[in-house]
């Protein structure tokens, strides 16, 4: 949409063919991401929220071409990533990095911190001399608040928060344009979570990074994101600037999601109106007809079962997929 957009995702669909349970059973198809689209501007943070199984991690991996998509396009700086050869795609990876939920699992246990952080550097700038290479590693460690003296240590000698810093240092060493953060603070304790959130925020401001920040923690997403995309069962439910979304959610699911988050203040938490959704998220193997949310939606009408709501513009920069968002 905007001129500064570096990433543009259109109608992305990711599906998995599941093996039939019996020999002659029907091959079943699981649509994990269904027709999601968004744009990302340089230096912007887009939060992606939703419950488990809503496809947020799948969406991130499909955007990074780590999973094949079954329909739709991902355009990065003018190139349709889906049409690139593996080698062309590999070369573009220097600009888009990924950090993970489980910080220790994302680090090879048999490599030193220095080797881990230098790995993308070795892949894309293999001709650096040892002195320059060492300086780059130290610079990246320093950037994320790791003591460069720790360069020869191994991941298991670090705490979770420190491991996440190592992961960020590895992602930052090539100064990418985009970092996709997949639940980067979910495995961390509250006091460490704040350190990492602040670090990501600082890196973004300093280097003009764009972030895709995936989390189920709405409070963190609200804090760090400029815009937020809400997913439910693989579908875009609502996309809006962060403050608009929290102050005036348009989709009933967004509203329920926000209301469900406990607020760490007894006076507010006890006084707030209860808006508890019944039931569970339906199986993505057998999504409801029409609107995916209608089985739990307090405002569902017959139309919701008959027709899937289209993604419509609901105000400046706001998209919502609901038949009744106006009410």
């Amino acid at each position, binding site marked *: 949409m905007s001129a500064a957009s570096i990433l543009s995702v259109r109608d992305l669909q990711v599906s998995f063919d599941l093996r039939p349970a019996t020999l002659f059973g029907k091959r079943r198809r699981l649509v994990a991401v269904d027709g999601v689209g968004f744009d990302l501007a340089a230096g912007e943070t887009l939060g992606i929220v939703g419950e488990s199984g809503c496809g947020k991690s799948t969406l991130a991996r499909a955007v990074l071409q780590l999973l094949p998509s079954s329909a739709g396009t991902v355009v990065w700086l003018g190139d349709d990533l889906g049409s690139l050869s593996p080698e062309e795609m590999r070369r573009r990876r220097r600009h888009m990095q990924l950090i993970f939920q489980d910080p220790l699992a994302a680090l090879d246990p048999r490599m030193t911190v220095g080797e881990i952080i230098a790995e993308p550097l070795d892949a894309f700038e293999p001709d650096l001399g040892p002195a320059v290479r060492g300086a780059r590693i130290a610079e990246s460690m320093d950037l994320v608040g790791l003591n460069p003296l720790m360069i020869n240590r191994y991941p298991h000698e670090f705490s979770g928060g420190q491991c996440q810093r190592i992961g960020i240092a590895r992602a930052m060493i090539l100064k990418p344009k985009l970092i996709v953060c997949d639940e980067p603070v979910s495995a961390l304790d509250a*006091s460490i979570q704040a350190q990492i959130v602040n670090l990501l925020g600082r890196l973004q401001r300093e280097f003009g990074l764009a972030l895709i920040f995936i989390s189920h923690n709405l409070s963190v997403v609200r804090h760090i994101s400029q815009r937020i995309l809400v997913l439910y069962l693989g579908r875009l439910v609502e996309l809006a600037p962060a403050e608009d979304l929290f102050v005036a959610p348009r989709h009933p699911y967004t509203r329920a999601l926000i209301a469900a988050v406990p607020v760490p203040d007894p006076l507010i938490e006890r006084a707030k109106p209860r808006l508890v959704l019944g039931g569970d998220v339906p199986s993505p193997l057998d999504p409801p007809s029409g609107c995916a949310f209608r089985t739990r939606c307090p405002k569902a009408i017959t139309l919701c079962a008959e027709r899937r709501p289209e993604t419509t513009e609901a105000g400046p920069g706001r998209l919502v997929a609901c038949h009744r968002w106006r009410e």
Partner: protein
Amino acid sequence: MNAILEIEHLTTRFATPDGEVHAVSDVDLRLDAGETVGIVGESGSGKSQLFLTVMGLLAGNGRAEGSARYRGTELLGLSRGEMRRYRGRHMAMIFQDPMTSLNPHLTVGRQLTEVLNLHKGMDAAAARAAAIAMLEQVRIPDGARRMAAYPHEFSGGMRQRIMIAMALLGGPDLLIADEPTTALDVTVQAQILELLRELKASLNGAIVLITHDLGVIAGLCDRVAVMYAGRLVEEGPVEAIFAAPKHPYTQGLLAALPRVDAKQPGDLFAIPGQPPNLQRGIVGCAFAPRCHQVIDRCRAVRPLLADLGCGRRVACHRVGA
């Protein structure tokens, strides 16, 4: 008042190949009938180990010292057989992951009625009726039919309800919930919290809610105990502590949380550093290396819990000094 559980000077140590770990260090806590107490702390703060010790569920390499009395009866040092009589019937515990606590090969009905046969000597028909009634109470619709289902046929939220039902079947007056909603999605968590809220009103005993989520505590608990590095650092009524935390750790923890109901400008408040390694003996206050109000005394002398009045206690040299 009517004390259900009195914990005094409780210390739990684990022998590990790399040395002894002090998981719980000299904790005092009292639970009265009718109250819900939240235990909050980060991973490794000893909040779960404290109550696993009380329940006699320590891992083999763990040793406990001190005292934990259930309605006046000392629990530490009871034989496994005696402890088993208390568990389920008087005290029950529910865990974060219901799937590990449920036997995947038995129907839910079988597992529920087993508890009743065991603890109350009910016959099959009575146990079945009671189990179905209990499923209704934890809001599992169509209980009679669901009794024949296996655990994997239920969703995560439903399984947690079954765990709660199972815990309540023996009629305990001490229910310990260890991170009961952590593995659940936020909308399902809201359902379970709603259920716990209802139970709280109907249960005569005490509920302990162990969690890392201050929001959950704010909504559900009467009192809160904050643990750090195996120690109890602050304890008191929920409203008072959330409104004016006294211990620098509690203050930091509350300030570090982004809020869903308001946008903080700028950076979050971050407590610097990491929690201490419990393998090394801690001298002085465990929080001292991360504390911005630290004085020399903090590094030398461990602060004891001091009574501040109004049911509040805090372990900090800088408070009330």
